[in-house]
């Protein structure tokens, strides 16, 4: 090789090594529609120069549909705990290097050791919540402690519940002493009579905005997401209370995860670490009053936010996370459709 060629090659190699990153860095975020405030995204972009392209979804399954199609490559997604479990099983998530997320230590101890991702190897908790009972105490004078109290004949036509078959089924299972990990065909048949009694009492099924009929006075009781309940309590603190059912309540954990095939992994890690900062996480809580898993951020909350019993329930309630139930999900859907049709109009 001539000296000139060697020199040219060396120059080329050094040029490549010194070359700046190809294009402006970006992050493709696929998140729940209500979860990431624009101010957080703007702050992240200002600091790191990384543009955030955000798409949003209203259900885990919507997210999966677009994720699996391969139409776009996402760098970050926000699955709920039982979807994280399914994604891990299907080897769809990148294993996380905790060294790249120094602020992971801000996550509370109770979020480690959960069934879906015990060592947080694939997901980082973003927001946690519960599914519980909202009671209009001006209309319902007697104490309400659980599902059985809600689904009584005297409350016929005064109930709003989530339009989520899996949720509804697990509530019925809970009254029979069964947990969310026991959703099987046999158990579904077991709770069918319970649900057949319950569903005709419901006036509204709403997973998007159950706060509306509660605030409108169309219903007196509801089994809703804690974030919705927190908004209701914020609006009318004297009129409503939030109660976690004694038979057992769903604790959902929505986490950030990096799907395999993500193009901007570094940006994804940067974002995860960014939202784990207490002052950033606190901004998220401000907009969406779910339970913040970041214990450092909790210290920055206002007393009023901390006192909201829907966001931060007192006591030691019985909380259970959902598990990946596989093909039984189709049977769950059919059961509720059937009973809804029979009880409805």
């Amino acid at each position: 090789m001539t000296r000139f060629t060697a020199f040219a090659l060396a120059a080329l190699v050094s040029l490549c090594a010194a070359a700046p990153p190809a294009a402006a860095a970006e992050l493709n975020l696929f998140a729940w529609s209500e979860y990431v405030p624009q101010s957080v995204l703007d702050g992240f972009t200002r600091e790191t120069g990384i543009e955030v392209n955000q798409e949003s979804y209203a259900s885990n399954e919507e997210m999966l549909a677009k994720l699996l199609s391969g139409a776009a490559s996402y760098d970050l997604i926000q699955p709920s705990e039982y979807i994280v479990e399914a994604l891990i099983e299907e080897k769809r998530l990148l294993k996380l290097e905790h060294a790249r997320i120094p602020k992971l230590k801000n996550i509370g101890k109770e979020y480690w050791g959960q069934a879906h991702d015990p060592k947080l190897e694939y997901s980082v908790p973003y927001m946690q919540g519960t599914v519980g009972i909202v009671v209009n105490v001006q209309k319902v004078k007697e104490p309400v402690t659980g599902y059985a109290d809600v689904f009584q004949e005297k409350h016929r036509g005064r109930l709003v519940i989530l339009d989520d078959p899996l949720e509804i089924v697990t509530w019925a299972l809970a009254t029979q002493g069964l947990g969310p990990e026991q959703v099987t065909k046999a158990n579904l048949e077991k709770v069918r009579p319970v649900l057949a009694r319950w569903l005709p009492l419901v006036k509204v099924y709403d997973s998007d905005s159950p706060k509306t009929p509660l605030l409108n006075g169309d219903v007196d009781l509801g089994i809703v997401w804690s974030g919705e309940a927190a908004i209701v309590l914020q609006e009318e603190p004297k009129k409503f209370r939030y109660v976690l059912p004694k038979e057992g309540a769903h604790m959902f954990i929505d986490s950030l995860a990096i799907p395999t095939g993500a193009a901007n992994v570094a940006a994804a890690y940067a974002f995860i670490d960014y939202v784990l900062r207490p002052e950033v996480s606190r901004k998220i809580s401000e907009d969406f009053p779910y339970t913040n898993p970041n214990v450092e951020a909790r210290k920055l909350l206002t007393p009023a936010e901390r006192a909201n019993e829907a966001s931060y329930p007192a006591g030691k309630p019985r909380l259970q996370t959902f598990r990946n139930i596989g093909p039984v999900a189709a049977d769950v859907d059919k059961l509720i459709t059937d009973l809804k049709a029979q009880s409805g109009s």
Partner: protein
Amino acid sequence: MTRVSRLFAGWTGLVMLFFYLPIAILVLFSFNESRLNVAWTGFTFEWYAALLRDRVLVRALENSLIVASATTVASVLLGTAGAWLLHRYRYAGGGLLETLIFLPMIVPEVILGVSLLILFVAIGLQLGYATIVISHVTFCAPFVMAAVQARLAGLDPALEEAALDLGATPPEAFRRVTVPYLMPAIVAGALMSFTLSLDELIVTYFTASARTRTLPLEIFGRVKKGLDPSLNAISTVFVVFTVFAVFSAEALRRRNP
């Protein structure tokens, strides 16, 4: 007949009232103090001010306008061409083609969305304006076609023949005789197409990219957070702007016929 006409006119007034009642609420609540669109608490302009800061929402509106306009143009071309060609000529398989064009009207939006998404991925078409417009046109074009077909059903073929006899070429006859005759149907079809595209949600979810999010996607995304009055504000702004634009266009047209 005038008594009946007056009756019909009166009924039209009632129907218009019916149409505009929720709109009146919508506009009213855009000035509502409460963040939740539930009860009236007081008057404020803050939500209109919030619009100025809400780049995301405004961009979504721009995207919706771009998509709806492109969809309308394409649907009018496709629908009118389809209706006229199928009316004028007897094609082998013409009935099949007609049924095919109408098919997307019956296909549930989620299925249309998913299957078009799979198709786009298969042929390597990146999600963006093109994919959204294509998916919108598939179910808007039938509306134009139906409107134009209804109008064509009463078209006297003698009209076009007369034009040809008088020395017009077929394209000229089409342009100067058929199109003006079809204009009310084309306008009706365009209005329907624009309206449908503007409010389309599910199909758009599957065929849009992050940068091309439309207004319905943005608004539906905010349901859980609470439909704050800035959404009412942007709806109001858009309607006022469009009505103003159309009135101006009409006024200009009258001045230069």
